[in-house]
């Protein structure tokens, strides 16, 4: 069973917010003893998803949780926004697809960097992306 050990949330409203958000995620990752490669992957994933919030929804929120399952601990990040939503999630998850002016690596690339990836989106209501990285994952 997945247990939440601690919780922290941050709001994302402007471009500069990506810096404290990355720092906060890194701090928590260091605190649970995550190795440097996994830390870097998680922080990079967070950076991609914060950018998506800013680009497509203007503002949103990030929830940072330390979770555990059995003897394994990890970090779960939830990125939620009340933006336009994604009409075709399968298409958005394809490498190279983008409705914005980007490389289209954000979502599929992020998925490769973490252990668990979940995306829920309703057109006109918003998008919630949840990622989980195990300490030794």
């Amino acid at each position, binding site marked *: 069973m997945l247990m939440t050990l601690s919780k922290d949330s941050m709001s994302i409203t402007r471009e500069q917010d990506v*810096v404290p958000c990355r720092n906060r995620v890194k701090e928590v990752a260091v605190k649970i003893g995550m190795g440097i490669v996994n830390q*870097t992957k998680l922080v990079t994933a967070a950076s991609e998803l914060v950018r998506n919030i800013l680009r497509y929804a203007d503002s949103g929120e990030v929830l940072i949780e330390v979770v555990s399952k059995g003897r394994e601990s990890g970090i779960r990040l939830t990125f939620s926004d009340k933006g336009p939503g994604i009409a075709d999630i399968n298409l958005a998850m394809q490498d190279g697809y983008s409705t914005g002016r980007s490389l289209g690596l954000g979502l599929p690339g992020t998925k490769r960097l973490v252990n668990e990836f979940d995306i829920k989106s309703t057109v006109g209501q918003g998008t919630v992306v949840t990622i989980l990285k195990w300490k030794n994952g």
Partner: protein
Amino acid sequence: MDKIPILRMGPFLLVTIQIDLYDRLALNLETDLINMVHKTGARGVLIDISAVSIVDSFMGRILGNIASMTRVLDAETVVVGMQPAVAITLIELGLSLHGVHTALDVERGMALLQTKHSLDDEMAGDDADDTE
């Protein structure tokens, strides 16, 4: 507003990124560098990212853009000092920094730029001989 300083070293420009980049800052660096290359006629650009703990898809794209843009202005760009964890993450993310020269550290990066620069000079010298 934060700004990343660009130093001039002979025919080359040197940039050391020591603060956390957000998108606007990276875009400004791109513009500043291209303008500097144009203004100074620099033949090479060295970007030291040894203090950068993450490079995401946007920053990766900016590095690629800088390399392509300086190339059409006849200057080579070399990115040096990438941390191993950053390299692993970039490739898994799907960015291979195609077309960007890289070197392990500043010293090797400078040597690479020097080599390219002197090769260009030699070729220019050959051309001059041919026309005689």
